[in-house]
């Protein structure tokens, strides 16, 4: 096995200024990704610093999910490079995955295993120390304590989503990637999600989220990005952006 570098070690590379706001958690340059003959991302650049929460908006098919799959190391860009804490993912993404926690569209949990079995299994894959305590801690945070013994297949969509969030948080990732994580969540669960995001920002970690609810996205982020035509059509601090600014950029010839 390769030796595992902890995220704490990774931080020190690539930045001379040690203020958290200047540590580049994610740096993507010139990202291009096509599926068949359709170009989804067309030379996109983005930087996310530690302590920053970024909300990505865009019409259906704008490439939000594709971008998050690229950032989560599941997909590789056709062109361009992605660095996580200064380390180029083309040079092996195994250490980068220690700093990444992702909630994508599918819960990525085994239907015939209980939540506890799922979390323990994925925890082992991350070699988390004192795993049992950590599983209970995260499950408690997501309001899953009483459902730990239930099989994922038997859970409602909302609880599967909570369990997916628990899986993503298990290894204490420094970067949280959330692809429409709030869909299917009821009000209490959304408040839990908001709490997780706020806590993550507060701890000086990075959050990248996509969402269709523009107001919530603006309220919960430091910076707003709008994806249109395969690039970012808007990149502004959240404080100066109104929902109308965002939706105005959604215009997509495909809808016409």
């Amino acid at each position, binding site marked *: 096995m390769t030796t595992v570098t902890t995220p704490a070690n990774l931080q020190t590379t690539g930045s001379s200024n040690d203020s958290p706001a200047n540590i580049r958690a994610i740096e993507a340059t010139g990202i291009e990704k096509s599926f068949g*003959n359709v170009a*989804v991302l067309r030379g996109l650049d983005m930087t996310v610093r530690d302590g920053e929460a970024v909300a990505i908006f865009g019409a259906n098919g*704008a490439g939000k999910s594709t971008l998050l799959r690229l950032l989560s190391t599941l997909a590789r860009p056709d062109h361009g490079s992605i660095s996580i804490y200064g380390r180029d993912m083309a040079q092996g993404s195994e250490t980068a995955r220690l700093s990444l926690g992702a909630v994508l569209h599918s819960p990525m949990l085994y239907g015939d295993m209980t939540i506890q079995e799922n979390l323990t299994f994925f925890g082992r894959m991350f070699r988390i120390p004192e795993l049992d305590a950590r599983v209970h801690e995260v499950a408690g945070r997501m309001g899953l304590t009483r459902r730990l013994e239930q099989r994922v297949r038997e859970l409602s969509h909302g609880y599967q989503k909570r369990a997916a969030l628990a899986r993503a948080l298990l290894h204490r990732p420094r970067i949280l990637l959330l692809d429409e994580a709030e869909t299917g969540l009821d009000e209490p669960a959304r408040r839990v999600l908001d709490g997780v995001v706020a806590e993550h920002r507060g701890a000086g970690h990075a959050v990248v989220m996509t969402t269709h609810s523009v107001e919530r996205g603006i309220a919960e982020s430091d910076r707003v990005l709008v994806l249109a*035509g*395969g690039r970012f059509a808007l990149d502004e601090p959240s404080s100066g952006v109104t929902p109308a600014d965002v939706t105005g950029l959604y215009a997509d*010839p495909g809808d016409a």
Partner: protein
Amino acid sequence: MVAVLQTRWIWPGFTAALMALTLWMIFLWVPTEINQGNIQRSLYFHVPVAWIAMVAIILVAVASVAYLKTRDEKWDRLAVAGAETGVIFAGLMLITGMIWAKPVWGVWWTGEAKLTTTLILFFIYVAYLMFRAYFPPGEQRRRLAAIIGLLGAIDTPIIYIGAQLWERAHPSAVVGPLSETDSSVDGPIGTTLMVAVLAFSVLFFYVARERYRLRKQEDEVAELRRAVSLRPASAVASAMGTAGALAGSAD
């Protein structure tokens, strides 16, 4: 007359001339083999075609490794060209083998090691091409096809060793009138065979090259479409009504 001198006619012209020479040698020049009679002439097709079927899998394997290393599409095009010509030549090898085996050995099919190996190789080519047909185009298809091509090529010598062991374990049902005789390949027979192998190699090279070029042109058309879809959204809408709708299906 001028057209004949153009460079694009050099390869087909050379191939056609060499094939014509080969046909003349096979049917008019080389004497009839004493034991087997005229049917032996099918050997001049069977052997070169079998040789090409094997060369093609090596081409597929080399191109596949090069693709996985470089991710350059030209290697993928070369691998497909190899597999497409390979499946044709493997098929021809099986057919000529049967045509020859029936009168000589008394059966259409035997467990002869090279026939068995080519049969399995034929199925590997078919699987490779069917996988490509089922899979949507793009980098993923090129990469997965390269893996199939490479595993198929690695498998081929193992299949051949297995087929040889199998042939030895089942001394086959060779009962034809001439099953005991052995043909020598000296003199005119050997010369004809060598010319035929050369001619079919040139044919293979020519066909694979044409297939490669056609693929390249198809890819260039696809790339042009993509380039159109890369232009700003407003230009896309006016330039190509369907491009936006295509892009809309990608999330």
